[in-house]
């Protein structure tokens, strides 16, 4: 993806440049809102990451400006403000997602991925993994010998993981995508759900693995 980052904190900017390079994205880093607008005049970008608190203008006005110019790429806000009111304001201004500092690199990547998928109307979830057939209507996974039915949330969780195959999905991202929850509920609810899903997927001929990565999240891997 071609990405634009507008962030005035040099340390965070530097880190993000590194992460995006590792993830294979092209990232243009601007420290000011004005310079970002200038850069966007001559360049295409697939998604923009905007810090809300910029020295020359706030991220909300920047988005309003871009939207007024007819630029419709997905916009993700980065902010130190965590209140719902701020998030609602960001989304009302024309933003598509909202990420609170501090955040995990994987979280940012997963969100950008999700935004990009949404913007480009990506392929729906695949129907076949290895020898497994997936039936999203009946929420059923069947191998040659066995069939397992999933609960609605389990299915959504599997879909989110599958859509970002090979990527680390942080707990917070899964909570938001699957349960629409933006806080840490304390109890290891995601862990428990992942364990349950894993147990259900342990059917012969099904090569789906969900790996836990300590301190980071979960990765969907299909060995097929």
């Amino acid at each position: 993806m071609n990405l634009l980052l507008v962030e005035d904190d040099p340390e965070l900017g530097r880190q993000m440049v590194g992460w995006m390079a590792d993830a294979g994205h092209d990232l243009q880093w601007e420290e000011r809102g004005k310079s970002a607008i200038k850069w966007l005049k001559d360049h295409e970008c697939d998604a923009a990451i905007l810090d809300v608190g910029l020295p020359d203008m706030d991220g909300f006005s920047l988005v309003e400006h871009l939207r007024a110019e007819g630029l419709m790429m997905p916009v993700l806000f980065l902010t130190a403000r965590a209140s719902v009111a701020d998030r609602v304001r960001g989304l009302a201004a024309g933003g598509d997602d909202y990420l609170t500092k501090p955040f995990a690199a994987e979280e940012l990547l997963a969100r950008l991925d999700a935004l990009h998928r949404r913007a480009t109307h990506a392929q729906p979830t695949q129907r076949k993994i290895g020898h497994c057939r997936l039936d999203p209507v009946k929420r059923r996974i069947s191998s040659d010998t066995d069939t397992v039915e999933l609960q609605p949330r389990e299915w959504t969780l599997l879909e989110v993981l599958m859509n970002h195959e090979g990527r680390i999905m942080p707990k917070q991202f899964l909570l938001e995508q699957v349960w629409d929850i933006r806080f840490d509920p304390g109890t290891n609810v995601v862990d428990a759900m992942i364990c349950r899903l894993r147990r259900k997927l342990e059917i012969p001929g099904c090569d789906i693995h969900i790996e836990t990565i300590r301190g980071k999240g979960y990765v969907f891997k299909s060995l097929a």
Partner: protein
Amino acid sequence: MFLNLWPEKMPSQWRLSLLMGLIVGSSIALTIFFVRAAVNQDLRRADQAIILDDLVEYAAIYTHSGVDGVQDVFPAGQHAESNGMRILDGNSAILYELIPEAMQHYPWPQKSPVELHKRGDTHQSEVTLNEAPYHFTLGAIRLHDGNILWFGRSSVEAERYLSNIQNHLWLAGIMAGLVAMLPVLWYSYDVINPIKAFTASAKRLHLPEGVVRLIAPTAIPELKTLASVINAGLDQILSLTRELQSTNDQLAHELRTPLARIRGNLEALHNHTDSPLAEDAAARSLEEIDRAAQLVQSILTIRGGDHGALRLHRQATPVSDLLEKLVDLFTPAAEDRGLKLSVVPGLDLMLNVDRELLTQAVANILDNALAYTPKGGVIIVHWHGEGTGAVICVDDSGPGVHPEEVHMIWERYNRGSAANSRHPGIGLGLSLVRAIATAHGGTVGVNNREGGGASFWIRLPQGV
């Protein structure tokens, strides 16, 4: 005082109306009483004078024209129904008599009074009969030939005057009574209505996002002053609240940005180190940083909620939806702990609340219940309507809460004695619940259930 005699909850307009009614009523009664007494006395004197006049007049007519003259003149006189006449000769035989029917039941004398000795002597007496409504004044005069002329007059006319005066006095009294209601109207419009408006505003003062002020444009100056003094205080509270909000925002920013920088560097370490030891250390540190960020957020939410500085994003939220989603989320974790978690379907209630914060509040209670309920236990989430609001309850089969700790557990950093090292945390969970409920104008509490276990509840008003 006598005010104590009145029902305590009687509205003061009614009290004032009653008081004014009492004042006006008693003034009219007193006026009528004294006016009646005075006029009555005057009218009696007037009656006596009239009788004397008539006696002398008819005596003169008698002297001049005898009984025939009197017979001609008397019936032509006015007020025939209230005047009567009888002329007796020396042997008490009736020479002439004209007594209207209305006066016949009075005791007309049959003989001459003894004290009339010579011509022109007069005598007057008054007769009051229990069964008659009017009193009766009787006069006698000794005529030139020794006969006696009796002239009787009843008080019908006097009473007519009196009742006429009385009617006018009543009319005046009623008018005065109406005029006396003007202060009552003034009192209820300028005093009571503004006070009611103040009360209505004051009831909304606890709502955190409310910038409620006491407004009463028609109030009396004293109340306006009171309102402006209170409003000035409220303005100050509001500005302090705003300041607290902006301090919170600033604090969040100041803490979150460095945490983000550290987190980024730890991730780089975690991803690029070859040492498993360093990787593990980095992973642990990442978890700690996330916990710290969550802690900062919780403290800010609690601070904001307790001080009415929490910005709520209210939206119409079905209670059942919110609770069922949460139970759904916690069920796998509960099952892993050998607990049975369920939600009792209830009324379809809509609340105007900050959905995310309320979800977090209930999640914290559930987190608490999962942590303290021993294996094999049961956790039941249920709700019911109360007024226009709702009460959400989480019942568990855990150890319950020690009676002395029922209030303490909601305080910051306090953990109940059931807490132990198996359940880490610094005890912010329940104070967060309370702060969120307070921010919504609600309350929280915990009861120990019969047969063991605790029931945590959040009571929420409908929301504005």
